[in-house]
C-alpha cells in the first residue's frame, strides 16, 4: 500500500464520475427521445451538479451533514475497490462481499442523513428503499454466491477474467442464463429504475429520501448517485457480462448495458413496494435457486461446455 | 435403654398421661417427641422380640438401616413440625402422641398384622386431625376410603397368611418364592391398594385434596411429610423386602405408580392454590417414589423421599401460614408476599428449588441417583418420563415462586408497593427453624458423600444393588 495506490484510487474515482455523469447526460437525451422530447445537452448533468454545489443550502443538524459525508465517503471507497477492465487501485481488495457491503455504508449514511432531516417523506422513502434492497439483493447474492462457488474465488476481477477470451459465450450471463436474468433484473432494483423506483417516486412521496436536500447537499447526492450507479453497473458487468479486456471495451459494454437498462425502464410502470418484494421473491429468487442448484449439483456452466 | 420398643411405648404412655393431666398435654407431647427423636439416634440395627414368642410366631420389631433412616427422619420431622406449630397443638396432644406411637410402630414392626394395627392407630389419629378444619365431609370421605383401604389390606394379609401360613415379614418373604404369580396376585394386589390409599396412589387418592387443602400450619406438614413419609417407608419395606413379586405384577404396579406421577404433576400444573399445587405434587412424587421402590432403586427412592418430605415440610408449613394470615392461598392473591418475609421466602424457595431438582440441593442429588440407577438397569423410558415431568414440575414451581416473590402485573416493573399488605408469616423462631431445615437441603445436596454415609451407613439398603452417584464418578474414573 503506497501513495500511488491512493493516487490511482483518486484517478479511478474521477474517471468513474466523469464517465458515468456523461453517460447519464446522454441517457437523459435517450429518455427524452423515447418520450418524444428533445432533451437536454449531454453535459447537462455536470452543470446540474456544479450548480447545486455552488448554491447555499440548509441543514437540519449535524447528522444531516455527517450522513451525507459518510455516504459519499463510503461510496467513494467502494468505487476505489471496483476493478475496471482488470485494473485495480488496490490489488486483491476487490472481494465481492467487501464491495457489496461497503456499498451499504453509503446507503446507510444516506438513509441516516435523510431520516435526520426530520421529514417523514424521507423516512418513508428510506423505509421503501431498504425494503426494496431486501427484495433485489437476496436473489442477486444467491447468484453471486453461485459464481463464487463455481469459480472458487470471490474476487470480482478474477471472475471477470475467467469469462474473457471466449467471446459472448464465455459470459456468465450466457453460461448461467437464469443467473444472468436475475442479475439483469436485480440491476433495475439496484439502480432504482422503473419498475422498482417507488422509493424515490417524486409524485408520490416528494422524491423520498431526497426531499430535504438542496445546495451542496443535493450536489453530494447527485455525485453519490452517479458513483453508486457506476458501482452497480460495473459489478453486474464484471460478474455477468465478462467485464472488459481493455478500458475501451469495458466502457462500450458499460454504456450499452446502462443504456439498455434505461431504455427498458422508460417503458415500465411502477411497482408498489410490496409488489416489488413479491415479484423478486417469486421469479428471480426461484431462478436464482434453480441456477444455484444446477451449478452446485450438475456443474453446468462452470467449465465452458464446448 | 436403646430398645426400639420404647419408641412406641413411651408416646403411648405419655398419651395416657396426658389424658389424665390435660393441662400438661402439650408439654408431654414435646417430651415424647424429644425422647423419641433422641432415642432414634441411638437405636442400633437388630431384632427385638416382643412377647417371648420367637419370630415366625411372635411379634418382633426389626431395625435395619432402612428402618433406622425412616425412624430418625420421621421422628425428627414430626418434632420440627410440632415445634414450629406448637401454638396450634392445643387439645390435639393426645392424638398426636398416639399418632407418634402408631407411626413408629408402622416403621418398626416386623409383622404384617401388627403393621395393620399400627396403621389403624395412625390412621384413626389422622382422621381426627383431619377434622381440625371442620370440613367434616372431607374427613368422612377420608374415613370411608381409608377404612376400605384397611379392609382390603387386612383381606390381603389374611390371604397371604392362608398361602404361607405366616404373618412375619421375614418368614413370608422366605416362603414367597414357593408360590406362583397367580396365587400371589390377589393378596399382593389387595395389599398394594390398601397401602396405596395412605401412600396416595392416584386412583385411590380422592381424599387427599379435601384433607390437605384445608389443613392448617400444623396438620398439613404432618400429613404431607410425616404420615406420607411413613406410608412410603412402609411401602418400600413391604414391596422391596417382603413381597418382591414377579414381572407381570411389577409392571402393573409400575404403571399405576408412573400414572400417579404423571397425572399428579399435570394436575399440580393446573392448580391455582399453593396447597393444591403442593398436594398434587406430593401425590406425583409419591408415585415416583413407589415406582422407584418397585423398580428396586431403593437408595434413590430413599433420597428422593427424604428430599421430598423435607421440602414439603417447609412448604406446607408456609402454605399453612398463608391461609392463617391472609385467609387465602391462591398464589395470585398472594402476589409479592415474600417481599415482607424475605427469610421465610428464602426457606420456601430453597425447598421448592430442591423439589424442582436444581443442582447443589438434595433434590438434584436424588434425581441424579434415579437417572443413574435407571440407566444402569437399561431402562430409558422412565428417565425420559421423569425428566419431562421435571420440566412440568419446574414450570409450576417457577410460576409459584415468581408470583410470590415479584409483585406487579404483567408489563409493570416489579415494585414493593404492588405487594399484598405486610403481615408477618412466621414468627422469628419458626423462620429460623425453616431456614435451618433449608440448610439441611443444601448440605444434603452439596456434601453428597456425607449424605450417602448417613443414609446407608456403608451398607446397601434392603439389598439394593443399584449404583449411586459419588464424587469420584464425576472425575471420570481417575
Amino acid at each position, binding site marked *: 500500500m503506497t501513495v500511488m495506490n491512493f493516487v490511482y484510487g483518486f484517478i479511478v474515482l474521477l474517471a468513474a464520475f466523469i464517465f458515468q455523469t456523461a453517460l447519464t447526460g446522454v441517457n437523459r437525451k435517450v429518455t427524452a427521445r423515447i418520450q418524444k422530447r428533445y432533451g437536454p445537452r449531454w453535459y447537462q448533468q455536470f452543470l446540474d451538479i456544479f450548480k447545486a454545489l455552488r448554491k447555499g443550502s440548509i441543514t437540519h443538524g449535524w447528522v444531516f451533514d455527517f450522513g451525507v459525508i459518510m455516504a459519499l465517503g463510503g461510496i467513494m471507497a467502494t468505487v476505489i475497490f471496483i476493478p475496471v477492465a482488470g485494473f485495480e487501485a488496490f490489488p486483491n481488495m476487490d472481494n465481492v462481499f467487501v464491495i457489496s457491503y461497503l456499498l451499504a455504508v453509503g446507503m446507510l449514511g444516506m438513509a441516516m442523513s435523510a431520516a435526520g432531516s426530520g421529514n417523514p417523506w424521507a423516512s418513508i422513502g428510506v423505509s421503501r428503499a431498504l425494503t426494496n434492497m431486501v427484495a433485489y439483493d437476496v436473489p442477486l447474492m444467491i447468484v453471486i454466491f453461485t459464481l463464487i462457488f463455481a469459480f472458487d474465488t470471490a474476487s470480482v476481477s478474477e471472475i471477470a477474467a475467467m469469462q474473457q477470451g471466449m467471446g459472448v459465450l464465455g459470459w456468465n450471463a450466457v453460461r448461467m442464463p437464469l443467473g444472468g436474468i436475475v442479475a439483469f433484473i436485480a440491476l433495475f432494483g439496484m439502480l432504482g429504475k422503473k419498475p422498482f423506483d417507488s422509493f424515490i417516486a417524486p409524485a408520490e412521496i416528494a422524491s423520498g429520501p431526497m426531499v430535504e436536500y438542496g445546495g451542496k447537499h443535493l450536489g453530494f447526492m447527485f455525485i453519490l448517485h452517479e458513483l453508486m450507479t457506476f458501482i452497480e453497473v460495473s459489478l453486474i458487468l464484471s460478474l455477468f457480462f465478462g467485464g472488459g479486456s481493455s478500458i475501451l471495451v469495458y466502457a462500450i459494454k458499460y454504456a450499452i448495458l446502462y443504456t439498455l437498462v434505461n431504455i427498458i425502464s422508460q417503458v415500465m410502470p411502477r411497482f408498489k413496494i410490496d409488489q416489488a418484494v413479491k415479484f423478486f421473491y417469486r421469479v428471480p429468487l426461484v431462478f436464482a435457486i434453480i441456477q444455484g442448484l444446477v451449478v452446485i449439483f450438475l456443474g453446468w456452466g462452470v467449465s465452458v461446455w464446448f | 435403654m436403646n430398645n426400639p420398643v420404647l419408641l412406641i411405648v413411651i408416646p403411648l404412655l405419655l398419651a395416657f398421661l396426658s389424658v389424665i393431666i390435660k393441662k400438661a398435654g402439650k408439654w408431654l407431647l414435646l417430651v415424647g417427641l424429644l425422647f423419641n427423636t433422641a432415642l432414634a439416634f441411638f437405636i442400633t440395627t437388630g431384632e427385638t422380640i416382643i412377647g417371648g414368642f420367637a419370630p415366625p410366631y411372635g411379634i418382633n420389631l426389626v431395625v435395619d438401616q432402612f428402618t433406622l433412616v425412616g425412624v430418625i427422619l420421621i421422628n425428627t420431622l414430626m418434632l420440627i413440625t410440632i415445634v414450629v406449630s406448637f401454638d396450634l397443638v392445643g387439645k390435639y396432644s393426645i392424638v398426636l402422641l398416639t399418632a407418634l406411637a402408631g407411626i413408629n410402630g408402622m416403621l418398626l414392626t416386623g409383622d404384617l*398384622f401388627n403393621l395393620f394395627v399400627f396403621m389403624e392407630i395412625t390412621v384413626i389419629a389422622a382422621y381426627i386431625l383431619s377434622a381440625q378444619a371442620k370440613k367434616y365431609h372431607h374427613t368422612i370421605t377420608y374415613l370411608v376410603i381409608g377404612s376400605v383401604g384397611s379392609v382390603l389390606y387386612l383381606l390381603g394379609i389374611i390371604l397371604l397368611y392362608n398361602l404361607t401360613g405366616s404373618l412375619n415379614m421375614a418368614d413370608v418373604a422366605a416362603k414367597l418364592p414357593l408360590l406362583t404369580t397367580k396365587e400371589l396376585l390377589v393378596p399382593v394386589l389387595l395389599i398394594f391398594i390398601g397401602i396405596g390409599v395412605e401412600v396416595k396412589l392416584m386412583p385411590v387418592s380422592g381424599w387427599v385434596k379435601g384433607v390437605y387443602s384445608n389443613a392448617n400450619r400444623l396438620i398439613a406438614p404432618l400429613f404431607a411429610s410425616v404420615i406420607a413419609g411413613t406410608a412410603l417407608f412402609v411401602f418400600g419395606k413391604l414391596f422391596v423386602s417382603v413381597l418382591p413379586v414377579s414381572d407381570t405384577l411389577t409392571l402393573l404396579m409400575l404403571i399405576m405408580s408412573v400414572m400417579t406421577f404423571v397425572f399428579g404433576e399435570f394436575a399440580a400444573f393446573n392448580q391455582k392454590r399453593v396447597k393444591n399445587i403442593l398436594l398434587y405434587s406430593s401425590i406425583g412424587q409419591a408415585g415416583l417414589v413407589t415406582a422407584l421402590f418397585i423398580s428396586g432403586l431403593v437408595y434413590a427412592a430413599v433420597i428422593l423421599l427424604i428430599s421430598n418430605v423435607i421440602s414439603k415440610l417447609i412448604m406446607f408449613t408456609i402454605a399453612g401460614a398463608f391461609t392463617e394470615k391472609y385467609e387465602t392461598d391462591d398464589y395470585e392473591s398472594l402476589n409479592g408476599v415474600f417481599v415482607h418475609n424475605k427469610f421465610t421466602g428464602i426457606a420456601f424457595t430453597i425447598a421448592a428449588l430442591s423439589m424442582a431438582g436444581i443442582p447443589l440441593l438434595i433434590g438434584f442429588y436424588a434425581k441424579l441417583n434415579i437417572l443413574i440407577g435407571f440407566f444402569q438397569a437399561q431402562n430409558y423410558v422412565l428417565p425420559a418420563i421423569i425428566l419431562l415431568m421435571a420440566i412440568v414440575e419446574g414450570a409450576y414451581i417457577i410460576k409459584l415462586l415468581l408470583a410470590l416473590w415479584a409483585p406487579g402485573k404483567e408489563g409493570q416493573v416489579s415494585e414493593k408497593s404492588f405487594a399484598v399488605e405486610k403481615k408477618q408469616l412466621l414468627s422469628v423462631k419458626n423462620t429460623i427453624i425453616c431456614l435451618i431445615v433449608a440448610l439441611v437441603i443444601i448440605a444434603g445436596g452439596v456434601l453428597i458423600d456425607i449424605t450417602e454415609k448417613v443414609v446407608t451407613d456403608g451398607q446397601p439398603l434392603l439389598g439394593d444393588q443399584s449404583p449411586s452417584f459419588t464424587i469420584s464418578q464425576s472425575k471420570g474414573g481417575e
Partner: protein
Amino acid sequence: MIRVASLLLLMIGLYGLLSTRNVIKMIISINIMELGVNIFIVSIGFVTNGVAPILTSQVNSSLSNFVDPLPQALVLTSIVIGLGITALGLAFARKLYKKYGTYDLAKIGGMKDE
C-alpha cells in the same frame, strides 16, 4: 361356602359404598365389609372336625387336628378396630349433620366447598 358368603358380604359392602351418598349408610356399608372380612378370617382357621388348640389332659398330642388359633386372635383385634372406626365415623356424621343439616355428602359437596 362360608368363604364365598363372607366375600359376598364384602361385595355387598362395596356395593353399598358405591350406591349411597348417605353418611350413615356408608358407615353401615363399611361395617358390612368388615364383617365379611372378619368372617373370612375366622373361616381360614377352620379345620373340619378340629379341636381347640389347647393342650389338656385329653388332647396332648401335637399331631391333633388343631384349629388354627391365630385367625381368631386376629379377628378380635380387627373387630375392635372396626368398632373404633365406626364410632369415630358416627361422631363425625353427627358433627356433619349439626353443621350442614344433612347426611347427604353430594349435597354438602355442592353446597359451599371451596
